[in-house]
């Protein structure tokens, strides 16, 4: 494959050259263990502190409130399990939503199997949580609300500030998985009353294998990974110095560019959405139209199946995703698409395109054109489309969603 158009930035991003350059000396040159006493290793301790400062500042937190972990998944697990176990005496009820990342859902499922009560809030057709539902769900025994900042599949941004306010008013701890939101939209943990927040480096042009959990001062969070005295006794394990340095650098580069870059991405995003709707019939945008991550497009193509679509795109050099990368390999359609009420038929035929720093208008035009051919080809092969043409069935998109398609 000669051409490569990467449109899966929500799955992972390349580390920026500036990030790689910053990390590089820490592999072979400044390799010391930051817990060591000698000067040589103290340099690494300072490097870690610098990254911690950068990340804390980016979310308006204090440095002591930022803890490094191995990624977004560990951050989610730690936050939820740590609070659940430590506040057990106060209650056993956790509130989350049906559209969380598996790192959150499966941790909640695990707790549910182990004596906790979990409420999985419904979302509306755009993927938004209903604030009144949240209010109604909170009870005496509620110890934690965990609702993601922005969805990784459909891009919908939740009303985090309102959620934070309600949690605060009710004395309930609030965790948010901000893996997809961090450095894409401005976050202020105080203004939004966030008590714990998960971040991941490889989604923001930093290295893989590193992330952070923000823990508001005063929150008692039991360790998930016990061991040495690293991370102020809260997370054992020799610090992943190069990755921490790279993560810090990625944030340092991304933050000043945030406003401008997100504007650029939003424009590209909306252009592409429009283009596909113009060129391909029987399509439906999933997720909220405006309360949406600047880099996320998620579209269902009726009568066809997503994996075939992805493979054909791949053969044209286009890297995209269907559902989330984490669930590919699984045969069930994405839990997020089902949660927003998509029938299985069209949930299966959805495509996630997530754009990023290298994405151009020309790339998206190429992809839109490719989609025209590919979708037509797959519909030609589809017995469901045949049934539709023979008027044996109706178009779900036409009837249920009133989205007109032109053949």
């Amino acid at each position: 494959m000669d051409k490569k158009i990467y449109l899966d930035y929500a799955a992972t991003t390349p580390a920026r050259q500036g990030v790689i350059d910053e990390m590089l000396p820490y592999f072979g040159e400044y390799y010391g263990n930051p817990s060591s006493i000698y000067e040589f290793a103290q340099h690494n301790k300072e490097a870690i502190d610098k990254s911690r400062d950068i990340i804390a500042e980016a979310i308006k937190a204090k440095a002591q409130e930022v803890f490094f972990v191995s990624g977004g998944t560990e951050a989610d697990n730690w936050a939820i399990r740590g609070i659940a176990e430590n506040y057990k005496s106060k209650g056993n009820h956790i509130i989350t939503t049906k559209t969380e990342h598996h790192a959150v859902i499966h941790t909640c499922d695990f707790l549910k199997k182990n004596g906790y009560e979990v409420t999985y809030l419904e979302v509306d057709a755009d993927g938004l949580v209903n604030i009144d539902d949240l209010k109604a769900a909170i009870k005496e025994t509620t110890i934690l609300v965990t609702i993601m900042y922005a969805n990784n599949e459909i891009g919908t941004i939740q009303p985090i500030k309102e959620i934070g306010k309600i949690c605060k008013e009710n004395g309930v701890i609030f965790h948010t998985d901000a893996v997809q939101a961090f450095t894409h939209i401005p976050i202020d943990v105080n203004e939004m009353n966030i008590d714990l927040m998960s971040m991941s480096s490889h989604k923001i042009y930093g290295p893989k294998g590193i992330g952070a959990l923000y823990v508001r001062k005063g929150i008692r969070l039991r360790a998930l990974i016990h061991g040495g005295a690293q991370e102020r006794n809260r997370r054992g394990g020799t610090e992943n110095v190069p990755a921490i340095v790279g993560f810090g650098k990625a944030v340092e580069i991304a933050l000043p560019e945030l406003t401008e870059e997100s504007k650029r991405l939003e424009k590209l995003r909306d252009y592409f959405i429009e283009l596909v709707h113009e060129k391909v019939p029987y399509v439906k945008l999933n997720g909220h139209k405006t309360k949406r991550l600047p880099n996320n497009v998620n579209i269902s193509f009726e009568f066809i199946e997503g994996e075939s679509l992805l493979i054909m795109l791949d053969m044209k050099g286009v890297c995209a995703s269907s559902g989330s990368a984490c669930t590919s390999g699984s045969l069930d359609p994405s839990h997020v698409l089902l949660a927003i009420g998509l029938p299985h038929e069209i949930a299966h035929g959805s495509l996630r395109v997530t754009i990023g720093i290298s994405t151009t208008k020309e790339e998206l035009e190429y992809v839109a054109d490719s989609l025209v051919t590919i979708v037509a080809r797959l519909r030609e092969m589809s017995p469901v489309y045949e049934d539709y043409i023979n008027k044996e069935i109706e178009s779900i998109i036409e009837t249920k969603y009133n989205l007109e398609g032109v053949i």
Partner: protein
Amino acid sequence: MYTKKVMDHFTNPRNMGDMDNADGVGTVGNAKCGDIMRIYLKVENGIIEDCKFKTFGCGAAVATSSMATELVLGKTIEEALHVTNKAVMEALDGLPKAKVHCSLLAEEAIQAALWDYAQKHDITIEGLEPPKETDHHEEEEEDF
């Protein structure tokens, strides 16, 4: 992920299309599991003279239906009945574990089309069962 053969049958599916006045048509699978296969047969003197398919599904679903049509074309009904999912898989040089169910679906699609042919022509094909709704999703490897 897929073998070269699978990719070949996915990108250049054999016998893809529909058929006017088919002698038998079988549709199996459902939208819930994400795969629907339809097989059209033309049978003359007990021999499968023509075979077409349409498939809604993943790469493996398309490839297994394409391969299945190839395997039954020119065969007697008897022989076609013995085109198992294993034969389809072997002919494709294998499938990922998670995709084995596609080959089962292809086997069933052939049998469903044969069943339809038998019904329409009021004959009995020995060893052929009426098609039933099945779900071929494998259990997760281990449950922890």
